[in-house]
């Protein structure tokens, strides 16, 4: 069940680079990351790639496969034809360091700008009481493995370096929503979402939701409800549209 697969991988660094072609063995049941590892072990020992868990849990191995933002460890080779060329490139929204490895520090900066969970002043450790239904909303967002694929995809920053300053991206707008929906968080979040983190830039295209490997409904469950809460104070036609227009079921 083994065949010679055709791979085209971006090789280079911050100075520049190019797509290089490789022929490499592919075996039954393998994922793209397995094939990249085989390239490393047999042809290109210095090819840079990030990975850890190989099971879709750590969010390290993000890249673009035939142009689609994906986790390499969860992309099965049997989703391609045997003679199809599989092109693997680094995430486009972030500056390249080397080969498939990009500089994702933008995300860590944004994370730092969101005020942390503010524990309720009068509840002691061990005395937190919350109902499952109430924690579930935030729990959905806490499934995030920080692969940053949604950040990579979002058109607000994908080809607009200039927006990075004022827009935190779906992952971090969702973090604000998560804190906002935390049953015991004592801080006010909605203003900051709009004013400092650029919620207004989002025009609910749902591209982020489509690429999320954790299948988190980023737009429907985090961003739109946040917009609605903000819109309690301000009228935002997009929210209104988002609620009225039925979208293609996922």
């Amino acid at each position, binding site marked *: 069940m083994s065949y010679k697969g055709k791979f085209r991988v971006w090789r280079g660094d911050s100075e520049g680079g190019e797509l290089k072609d490789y022929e490499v063995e592919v075996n039954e049941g393998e994922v793209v990351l397995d094939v990249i590892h085989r390239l490393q072990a047999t042809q290109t020992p*210095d090819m840079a790639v990030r990975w850890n*868990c190989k099971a879709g849990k*750590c969010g390290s191995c993000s890249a673009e496969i035939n142009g689609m933002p994906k986790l390499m460890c969860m992309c099965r080779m049997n989703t391609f034809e045997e003679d199809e060329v599989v092109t693997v490139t680094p995430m486009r929204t972030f500056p390249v360091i080397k080969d498939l490895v990009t500089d994702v520090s933008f995300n860590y900066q944004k994370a730092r700008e969101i005020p*942390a969970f503010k524990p309720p002043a009068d509840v002691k450790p061990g005395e937190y009481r*919350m109902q499952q239904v109430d*924690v579930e909303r935030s729990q959905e967002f806490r499934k995030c493995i920080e692969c940053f694929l949604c950040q990579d995809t979002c058109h607000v920053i994908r080809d607009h370096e200039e927006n990075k300053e004022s827009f935190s991206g779906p992952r971090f707008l969702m973090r604000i929503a998560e804190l906002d929906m935390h049953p015991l968080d004592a801080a006010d979040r909605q203003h900051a979402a709009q004013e400092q983190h650029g919620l207004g830039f989002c025009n609910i295209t749902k591209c982020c939701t489509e690429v999320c490997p954790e299948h988190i409904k980023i737009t429907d469950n985090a961003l739109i409800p946040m917009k609605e809460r903000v819109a309690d104070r301000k009228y935002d036609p997009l929210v209104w549209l988002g609620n009225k227009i039925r979208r293609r079921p996922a």
Partner: protein
Amino acid sequence: MTELERHSYDVVVIGAGGAGLRAAIEAREQGKRTAIICKSLFGKAHTVMAEGGAAAAMGNVNSKDNWQVHFGDTMRGGKFLNNWRMAELHAQEAPDRVWELETYGALFDRTPDGRISQRNFGGHTYPRLAHVGDRTGLELIRTLQQKIVSLQQEDFEATGDYEANLKVYAECTITELMKDGEAVSGAFGYWRESGRFILFDAPAVILATGGVGKSFKVTSNSWEYTGDGHALAMRAGATLINMEFIQFHPTGMVWPPSVKGILVTESVRGDGGVLKNSEGKRFMFEYVPDVFRAQYADTEEEADRWYKDADNNRRPPELLPRDEVARAINSEVKAGRGTPHGGVFLDVSTRLPAEEITRRLPSMHHQFKELADVDITKEPMEVGPTCHYVMGGVEVDPDTASSVVPGLFAAGEVAGGMHGSNRLGGNSLSDLLVFGRRAGMGASTYVDSLQERPKIDEADVDTAATEALAPFELEGGENPYSIHQELQQSMNDLVGIIRKEEEMEQALGRLAEFRGRIAKMTVEGHRQFNPGWHLALDLRNMLTVSECVAKAALLRQESRGGHTRDDFPGMNAEWRKKLLVCKLESDGSVDVTEEQQIPMRPDLLELFELDELSKYLTEEELPAK
């Protein structure tokens, strides 16, 4: 003098998993300027992969639970070889450490009355694992990561600099510890991205580097688990204990080959999943050892009743400690009753409704569907043992986490003693929190007690730099990937689940041969993000650690927990009293010596029935009755 980037801290924590982050939080809260160093990005450490939960006797689901019962289970699970003081501290402090996470923002699954829900797991008498579905490790690491960020935000408020007192150096690998005489004075390493060297000048270093599984072929562990901390500690003069004890988790994926070893959480069994052989038989009933007969059911009916009424029934044998289940699966496969791909069946599809499975085990459902085309709500999984956890590690003082080297501390999987010969599921995540915090306190107290700051010797820095660059020097040598593959195969085949004297001797012969070969490796390319070079440097550590495992395993002539000798099948009470201590000789070889265990405190001994104690302890050790 080597040109490099230099930083000065009070405490340097190597590792950003649960143990390292909790240690760093403590050190920073004790007012110490702290650095966290890790090989991967921040938030990607191995802890993120933990699934089942964190064990803490909060008594939320069964109010009979308390630290004494948890302590007893932990000692039993480790076959009484555990450092009892660590097991005691762990059982006592775990609930506070879990509750504290809620104040950092963690959101655990809840009981109907709004407390933290707890689930059953192998070897735990009561439902004890705080959890979030089957992604508890992710919750733990994200929560600690976010707590670090919140401390940085406090520092920003106060100083205008997020990183004034607490900084994360991600994708940075430490290759050597620095010493001033006997005491630690810092750490030397390189940035993975640029390949440039970096030096940390610090009077206290906390190792929180995790485990060693990458020395084995079939493993649930990631590339990070090359035993760096174990080897760094030894090179700095510290000792390792219990290295012969490696936990093979009974349920790893076996098919397809590329995912072989990836973990299938024990929660599958905790929530009702059963193990069957190719004849459809629930074989675990045949494998209940004498020491556990009293606690485990002998019929399927009783085992099934237990899930509903745990007080009046005994537990299903699928929930025996991991070493027992792994050996049983191994025997079934050897006896020809395995599945097509050489495992056994783990079935939850006939045990729970589909919605229940996807709610309780979402990531298992996802993992099998995506990676193996198996829908676990409809069909059984195929599973087999996988190298999962190393019980052995740096010998530490239980209260302060200090090693025998002044200024060197260790916590988490890299520390030894707490779990004895076998770790119970869920006891690692709680271990990280309890001893991570203690290491942070221990290091802070140590720093306060110093009259003078230990200094870095520039000659040592030059040596560390030369050694790190050595693989670039040679041309035409072997490639590190092939040596690594051979090492993994040897450890798997010769020092695996079932061990024999001749095989271990053979393994030691091969390890000596690998040592010669790694001295002559060649890496291609340049220093910038070069995985071949990184692996070449890690191999040195893997070899040292493998040598510890093989040598200690050869010496211990009994079977206990994660060490099974074909030629010495029984447990031996005389051996229980002994620890095997590994130390590095000046020529780089590993020396193993015996050390006597400290007898358990009488008030702790009293927590067990005499009957049970007599299965583990020698005549003289038993309390007079």
